[in-house]
């Protein structure tokens, strides 16, 4: 047993942290909030150049190699800096889906530009009224001659604005859920953009008879394999949440040491101390489980229960740490010009991303069969 990072992992952590400190100050995030993800792409490509996007993708596929623990380390730092989670969509979901379900040709063609950050492919798998983790999708893909024709509506597609291609989950004629690569500008695609609490943008996407070639399907795709990819992304996102939670907590601790009220630093008040101690405990709990889950994913492969547990705990930790940290800042906490609010506005999003909080407990203790 060993609870430390290896020398190499420490190097990764420091490299990522330094990179984001330099390339992703909060001013950059504010710029993206105002203008959208296109302003993020230069940084994103640099992340690709640094090899960050290729973590946990084998080198033979253009990745940087490394483990799920390395990926957790990277995401913790990304969360700390509140870097847009395009990498989760494009690499940890789509990239890993290609790895496990794609054809050799798909992998060869698509993985290198994904891991270099040159291309963004984003998954489109949420549907209105879809019961999470069940394969009953209403979007259908009908085989016609040498093509598939897709019809249906997808919701909450992240990074749509910068994606060249969507990875669309749809039911084929046999009733199986399959994954299809669909160029974003295909005829028959309409979208409607929404602004989130975080000021991120997501798109609802209507596919109205969108034709794609036969090779657009990921040949080994099926719903269970997709859920396994989702589980992996939940671990990555949990790492993001842990990093963000800790950053918010750090800011609150620092502020509470210098902010004086009643002739003493507010951090000396017991009620505030206990609030921050509670947040610290939740972060520690989530982080411990995070590295266990990441290690398990690396060593054993599939670990749906642990992925669900850590998604739940890390989401809670981020939400509660961001709340406590914002409250610590008193009236300043919710002023746009303060940075702590950036964390608060993203906490609930991270809970809902990839797979919402409502389904995690169902996975941890399933209903009696």
């Amino acid at each position, binding site marked *: 047993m060993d609870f430390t990072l290896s020398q190499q992992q420490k190097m990764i952590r420091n490299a990522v942290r330094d990179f984001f400190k330099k390339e992703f100050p909060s001013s950059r995030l504010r710029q993206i909030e105002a203008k959208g993800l296109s302003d993020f792409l230069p940084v994103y490509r640099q992340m690709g150049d640094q090899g960050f996007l290729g973590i946990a993708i084998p080198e033979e596929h253009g990745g940087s190699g490394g483990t799920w623990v390395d990926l957790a380390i990277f995401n913790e730092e990304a969360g700390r800096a509140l870097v847009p989670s395009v990498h989760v969509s494009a690499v940890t979901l789509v990239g890993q889906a290609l790895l496990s379900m794609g054809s050799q040709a798909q992998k060869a063609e698509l993985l290198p530009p994904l891991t270099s950050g040159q291309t963004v492919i984003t998954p489109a798998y949420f549907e209105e*009224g879809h019961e999470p983790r069940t394969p009953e999708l209403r979007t259908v893909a009908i085989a016609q001659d040498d093509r598939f024709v897709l019809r249906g509506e997808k919701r909450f597609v992240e990074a749509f604005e910068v994606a060249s291609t969507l990875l669309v989950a749809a039911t084929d004629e046999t009733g199986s859920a399959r994954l299809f690569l669909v160029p974003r500008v295909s005829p028959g695609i309409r979208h409607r953009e929404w602004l*989130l609490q975080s000021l991120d943008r997501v798109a609802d996407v209507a596919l109205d008879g969108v034709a794609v070639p036969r090779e657009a399907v990921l040949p080994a795709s099926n719903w269970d394999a997709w859920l396994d990819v989702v589980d992996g992304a939940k671990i990555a996102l949990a790492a993001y949440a842990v990093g963000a939670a800790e950053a918010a907590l750090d800011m609150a601790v620092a502020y509470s040491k210098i902010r004086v009220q009643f002739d003493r630093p507010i951090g000396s008040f017991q*009620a505030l101390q206990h609030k921050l101690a509670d947040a610290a405990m939740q972060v520690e709990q989530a982080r411990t489980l995070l590295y266990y889950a990441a290690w398990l994913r690396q060593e054993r492969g599939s670990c749906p229960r642990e992925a669900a547990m850590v998604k739940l705990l890390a989401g809670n930790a981020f939400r509660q740490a961001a709340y406590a940290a914002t409250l610590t800042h008193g009236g300043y*906490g919710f002023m746009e*010009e303060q940075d702590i609010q950036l964390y608060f506005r993203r906490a*609930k999003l991270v*809970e*809902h991303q990839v797979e919402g909080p*409502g389904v995690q407990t*169902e996975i941890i203790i399933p209903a009696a069969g």
Partner: protein
Amino acid sequence: MDFAFTPAHERFRAELQEFCRKEVTADLFNEMKEAGEEHHPGFYRKLAERGWIGLQWPREYGGRALDNLHTTIFFEEMEYAFAPVGRYRGSVVFVGQSILAFGNEEQKRYFLPRIARGELTCCWLLSEPNAGSDAAALQLRAGEEGDDYILNGQKIFTSGAHASDYGMVAARTDPGAPTKYAGISLFLVPMNSPGLTIRPLWTIGGWRVNQEFFDSVRVPRTAMLGEKNTGWQNITRYTLNFERAAIAKTGTLLRLSDELTEYLKTARYAAGDRMRHQLAALRAEIIACRWLGYKVAWLYDQGLTPTNESSMIKALTVDLLYRLADLGSDILGYAGLLRGPEAPLEGHVEFLLRSIWFHLVGGGTPDIQRNIIAQRGLGLPRE
């Protein structure tokens, strides 16, 4: 014990509901965006025309001489309808009620009828950059010069400073007083006074608050509200209690819990049933708080000063607002994060989760309320 409303209360409620059905429109909100706060001059005028400003004030000051329950019902129905009553709160409750409670006859006769007619709006300036929870540490100085006071210093986090005619300003008139609690006085200051600069501070809740810079702002001696150097006593005995009770948004709680209940009925899904029970548990607390709010109004009607209860209703309802917004977000799922009037429940859950901070921090943080409940309510010793 009698929990019945009078027929007059019931009629008033019905009248409010009818009014809101007609007057609270989408246009209202679009036009407010520019104003930058939960206030709409046209709508406010209509409230005045109906005679709904100064419900609880004596007739001689332009009021209606109704009991405080009317005001509580007014807020509940307005909040239920998501009607804009931000400047109403500031003008009528924070400032108007304070003038009534400890202003002199001249001030009452000047300000209250004008407020009641909707001609004059007010805001309340207490916090300073270095005096938040510790509001009594305020440093804005009001120095005497002949028959005038000259104000120098800063205020911050003021709602509606940019939309108000007058500000009620807490200032230090005796810097040499033995404690910080002594030596504070209140002034009614025209917000267009020379030397007074207002800077907007935008919040994540969408509305702006303000920072004000007082650079030798001159007001006459008659602008002082209440006795000299007793400002802090008046603030804690009156203004802050008025404020706390008035920002307990029971109407919002009722409305959103109703809407989420409806939503769960129509949009059925596995996790929904579980969340229905969480919502039901919140509902019980909301109904309790509704009656606690009526009780606070009733205590005022008895001539009492419900300090403890005002802190309780404030702390309880803001906690409920946060839990309801968070649960609401879970009930709506990812869609609960979407902004704007086309989002589920017209985006109200998303907005509430983001604007919760006005309620959390306004009138004192939850920690401050608990200090008051423990020390005033339970009589526990200060440190």
